[in-house]
């Protein structure tokens, strides 16, 4: 049975153009542009592979990351010895370890696989923390403007002027000593339990969180200021939208693009911060492997066993490149006018 109403609607369409033509939303359009960008697709694919590696680390790793085999310490397989020929006088050949073993005879490959977990966790938690704090702070500042804006932004300026890494290092040192031996049942005890449950990552998140939101707050504030003056925001006021509604339905959707791009481009920074903290020994608790701590261990023996530093460093570099490529691609896709600019 035909439906007369729908038939009428079809005829009402402009001469013969199929009405079921697929509509592209702005996001759909951006996604298509992203797929055309080869570097972004490669970056995205690498990130997806890394996520899979991190999730299925238990299946991919050939042995547990903390399993020591002191007989095989500093051993390397044949192909590694070929690549790094200077290692030959020092290393014993052991083809059980695809990338070699470290000073305690732990498999480098497995440790790199597990290390992806730390780096990727930081890569996702870091943006979430800084987005939540930064966007809320920046929106309030930009939306209300005037004196509120002035005071809030001066606070950010002050925090910004403080060297970020030094700040994180001091804070981590403080946390680690404060939460070292707390009494059971106290807040500090809960915190330190949580921290050790997360392999020492909780304080890294806090450290990244307290510094990374400042950039986001500034960016959000600027975007909100610019968007707030648009006529459609005024129109929203005329139709009686509340401040919250204007913020969330009219302003935020219009500025989310630049925020996502900035955050994606900031991810390599978070990863390298974590790696740096682990490198100087303030990162995750051993024996949890982190690329930073592996590079730190490897760098001590870089002349004799370069593979112990080079492979985790490669993993770190590839990951950071991947996020950078994806971020660049996102920026081009979301705002084609910015293509090729920095």
């Amino acid at each position, binding site marked *: 049975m035909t439906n007369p109403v729908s038939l009428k*609607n079809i005829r*009402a*369409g*402009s001469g013969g153009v199929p*009405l079921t033509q697929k*509509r592209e*939303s*702005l996001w759909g359009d951006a996604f298509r542009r992203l797929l055309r960008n080869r570097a972004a697709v490669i970056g995205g694919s690498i990130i997806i592979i890394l996520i899979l590696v991190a999730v299925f680390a238990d299946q991919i790793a050939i042995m547990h990351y903390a399993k020591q085999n002191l007989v095989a310490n500093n051993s390397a397989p044949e192909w590694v010895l070929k690549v790094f020929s200077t290692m030959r006088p020092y290393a014993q050949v052991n083809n059980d370890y695809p990338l070699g073993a470290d000073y305690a005879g732990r498999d480098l490959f497995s440790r790199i696989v597990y290390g992806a977990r730390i780096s990727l966790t930081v890569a996702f938690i870091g943006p979430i923390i800084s987005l939540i704090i930064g966007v809320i702070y920046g929106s309030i500042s930009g939306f209300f403007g005037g004196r509120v804006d002035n005071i809030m932004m001066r606070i950010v300026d002050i925090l910004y002027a403080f060297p970020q890494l030094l700040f994180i290092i001091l804070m981590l040192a403080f946390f680690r000593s404060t939460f070292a031996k707390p009494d059971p049942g106290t807040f500090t005890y809960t915190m330190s339990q949580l921290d050790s449950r997360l392999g020492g990552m909780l304080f890294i998140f806090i450290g990244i969180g307290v510094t990374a939101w400042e950039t986001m707050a500034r960016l959000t504030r600027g975007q909100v200021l610019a968007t707030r003056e*648009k*006529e*459609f925001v*005024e*129109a*929203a*006021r*005329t*139709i*009686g*939208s*509340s401040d919250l*509604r204007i913020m969330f*339905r*009219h302003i935020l*959707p*219009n500025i989310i693009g630049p925020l996502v791009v900035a955050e994606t481009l900031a991810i390599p920074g978070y990863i390298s911060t974590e790696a740096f903290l682990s490198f100087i020994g303030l990162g995750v608790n051993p024996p949890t492997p982190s690329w930073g701590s592996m590079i730190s261990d490897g760098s001590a023996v870089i002349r004799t066993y370069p593979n112990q530093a080079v492979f985790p460093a490669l993993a770190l570099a590839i990951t950071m490149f991947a996020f950078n490529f994806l971020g660049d691609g996102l920026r081009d896709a979301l705002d084609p006018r910015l293509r090729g600019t920095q």
Partner: protein
Amino acid sequence: MNQPLLQTVGLKKYYKVKAGELHAVDNINLSIQESQTLGVVGESGCGKTTLGRTILRLVPATSGQILFRGENILEYSGKQMHEMRRNMQIVFQDPYSSINPRMTVYNIIAEPIRSSGTRLEKQNMDKRVRKLMDTVGLASRLIKAYPHELDGGRRQRIGVARALALNPKFIVCDEPVSSLDVSIQAQILNLLMDLQDEYGLTYMFITHDLSVVKHISDNIAVMYLGECVEHGPKDQIFANPLHPYSQALLSAIPVPSLAARSRKPYLIKGEVSSPINPKPGCRFAPRCPHVKPICTQGELELKEVTPNHFVRCTLYGSEKP
């Protein structure tokens, strides 16, 4: 005379700037009868737009009263104003920046209804949006379209539909056609006039385009540097402009006739003086060809020269030469 739908009494909007006070809207007394159109004309920067936004309380007024059906809406609380907003809407000049590029046509038109706190079932909302789209002449297949897919005329129709969504009594049209092609201009103007006939809407039509204002208005107010220098019925103003500024403004309309070739243009000399800390007296005085010493002494009042035709000029009224 019955009570006007909207009336302003001594409405002022001053901005504080470094050099002093910028008189954007100064002492405006206007009234608009229900179902009529008041055209507000004047050159760029004369405060037309600010006047429109002040009346809608989009910018806070410095002093004065805005009476909607006799009630001063400047004294309304936030909640009362929220209710009042249903009655007063605006159509913006630029259809590109006045609609949210991240919303579909459906959401843009449904947004006023949602914001007003009215809860509608999905089906009813759907019906309402389709009805509004039909009213303003938008094909219903565009319901899921995004603004960037549409041309200026269609976007402006969305703007009109959005303004109509809450069944307002009064709409400020802030140069709604000046960024459109001439052919589209006519479409939108006719749409606005049809809607006025159908729903008894009252318009305040802000424009610098005199042919548009002639087409659509019942009454006209001429603004110069924040002041209303002349207002009255359209026919009288066009046939017999009294204020020297109105005369100059109207003489700028091109006349499509060969005989008009020899017509000498009535040009005014000089530049618009600054609206910051204006000197007392007539603000047009520095450029006026009929300027007299009395023009710059003391404030001038709007005088009713002929019935309903007011002018702020020393040439008329008691000191008539």
